């Protein structure tokens, strides 16, 4: 088990290193620029975003007691997207902080409303997903309406952003995201033991000393905030938080002390690889990475649904 965990972590890190060198050969000063100002920051941002999505997905699955729960299925991503779009389409002054603030608000409202449904006691597994889908569809409709009403310049920026992509020049993204998401990682990883106890049943965990309201608040707050930061910078990137924790569980088993850190590392590698694929599929033109993760994630979700129905 431990060997498998170490192996998975090592492979993930190695693949991320490989992703840096995927692409045309790099020579001279131009090559240096491409390597250090384009590819390396892109991989770092991809790692920060992918790691966040993987880790948050794994904690949400436990918190919602639902194998299909993740930031993209319970509405967190959709809420953040709506908030960020609002800021972009209305061209709010304040740059990234304004976008991030609105995304945070949207993400928190969406996760909170779904968790109220989940926490109302008798909610079945499907209710949580239905609530998540409702939030997602509603915010999706609002997003489209917003784009329809906004002027064409803002519209182009918003439409491009809403596909989810990682390209960047320089280290602004790393400097903005790292201080927002890394504290959230530490909070979520620190809750592994409480979440593991919670996984055996909400009331039973309360009788064993878990402060359930506090656990719920911390996971939702850290999850919403870090996902909102990623969405505000890169746009919505779907399905990473759904697929990655499932893959990790398959390999190392259900123990959260392993699943949580490995979902972080594997999520980072997964997104970076998807991005490497996105920029090398058609030379000269880049696909947004959100398109690649969605193309991989949609069939994976269908597969999981089938499996959970059989179980």
């Amino acid at each position, binding site marked *: 088990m431990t060997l498998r965990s170490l192996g998975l972590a090592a492979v993930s890190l190695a693949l991320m290193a490989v992703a840096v060198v995927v692409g045309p050969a790099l020579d001279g000063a131009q090559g240096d620029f491409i390597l250090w100002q384009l590819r390396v920051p892109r991989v770092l941002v991809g790692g920060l975003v992918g790691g966040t999505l993987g880790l948050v997905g794994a904690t949400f699955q436990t918190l919602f007691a639902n194998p299909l729960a993740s930031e993209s299925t319970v509405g967190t991503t959709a809420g953040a997207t709506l908030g960020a779009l609002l800021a972009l389409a209305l061209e709010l002054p304040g740059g990234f902080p304004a976008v991030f603030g609105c995304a945070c608000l949207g993400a928190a409202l969406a996760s909170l409303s779904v968790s109220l449904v989940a926490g109302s006691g008798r909610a079945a597994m499907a209710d949580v997903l239905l609530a998540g889908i409702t939030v997602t569809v509603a915010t999706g409709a609002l997003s489209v309406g917003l784009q329809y009403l906004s002027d064409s310049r803002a519209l182009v920026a918003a439409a491009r952003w809403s596909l989810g992509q990682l390209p960047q020049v320089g280290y602004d993204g790393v400097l903005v995201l790292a201080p927002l998401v890394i504290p959230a990682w530490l909070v979520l990883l620190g809750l592994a033991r409480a979440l593991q106890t919670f996984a055996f049943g909400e009331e039973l965990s309360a009788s064993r000393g878990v402060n359930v309201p506090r656990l719920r608040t911390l996971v939702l707050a850290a999850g919403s905030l870090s996902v909102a930061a990623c969405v505000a910078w890169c746009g919505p990137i779907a399905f990473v938080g759904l697929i990655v924790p499932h893959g990790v569980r398959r390999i190392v088993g*259900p*123990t959260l002390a392993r699943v949580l850190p490995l979902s972080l590392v594997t999520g980072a590698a997964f997104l970076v690889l998807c991005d490497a694929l996105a920029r090398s599929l058609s030379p000269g033109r880049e696909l947004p990475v959100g398109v690649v993760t969605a193309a991989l994630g949609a069939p994976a979700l269908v597969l999981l649904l089938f499996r959970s129905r059989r179980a």
Partner: protein
Amino acid sequence: MTSLRLESVSVAVGGRTLLDAVSIELEAGRFLALVGPNGAGKTTLLRAALGLVPTSAGRVIVGNQPLHALSPRARAAEVAWLPQQPLPMESVPAREAVMAARFRFSETAAATRRAAEQALERVGLAERASSPLTELSGGERQRIAIAALLAQEARFLLLDEPANHLDPAQQGDTYALLGRLLETGIGILCVTHDVNLLNHTGGAPQVAGLRGGKLVFTRSFEAPELPAELGALFGVRMLSLAANHARLIVPAPPEPQGGIG
């Protein structure tokens, strides 16, 4: 002596009174069986004593303190719970299901693991520590849940039908194990449908009857009036039989009746 005390505890959910001014006291080292028809409020009483449902009146006192004044971890040091469905159907190894009950301790993962394995040994399942819960029989799962209860090391154990899913030999073993816990000063409040299992615990167990959310009686298991009171509680005639110097209380078989035609 410390005790777990419910003082006129009422619980109402959505306008329905599930528990109506119930007062009971469980002393350290004593066994109190809680009996009553389905829907009498037995499980609600346990949940109230654990602080899992808010009381609409009255209070729960453990030692000298109100239960609700304790932090979740401090509460877990006082009362532990064996619910009716104690384990999820997941492929988690048995050891980890037991380790989860150690949450209240601030200790290393290795220490948690050792304590969990000791608890598994006490229920005779040490060799199943690495088996996923999904591969265990109903009886084994119940014993794993009891191991988890032991691993929590609380002073009072609140059990909801601990003999569920167990064969007769294991039922007796489980109550004998509970009896040995009494000697270490642990107090046990146990919901059961079969008071005869109290023959296995030793000590001087008591029986509390609950119906419609109200406490109807509290008696020593030896009390001569217990069979009649149990009969009235369940609405059946109970017989008291002597066997092996012990007493069995069983529902009377139906009277022979004349044929219809």
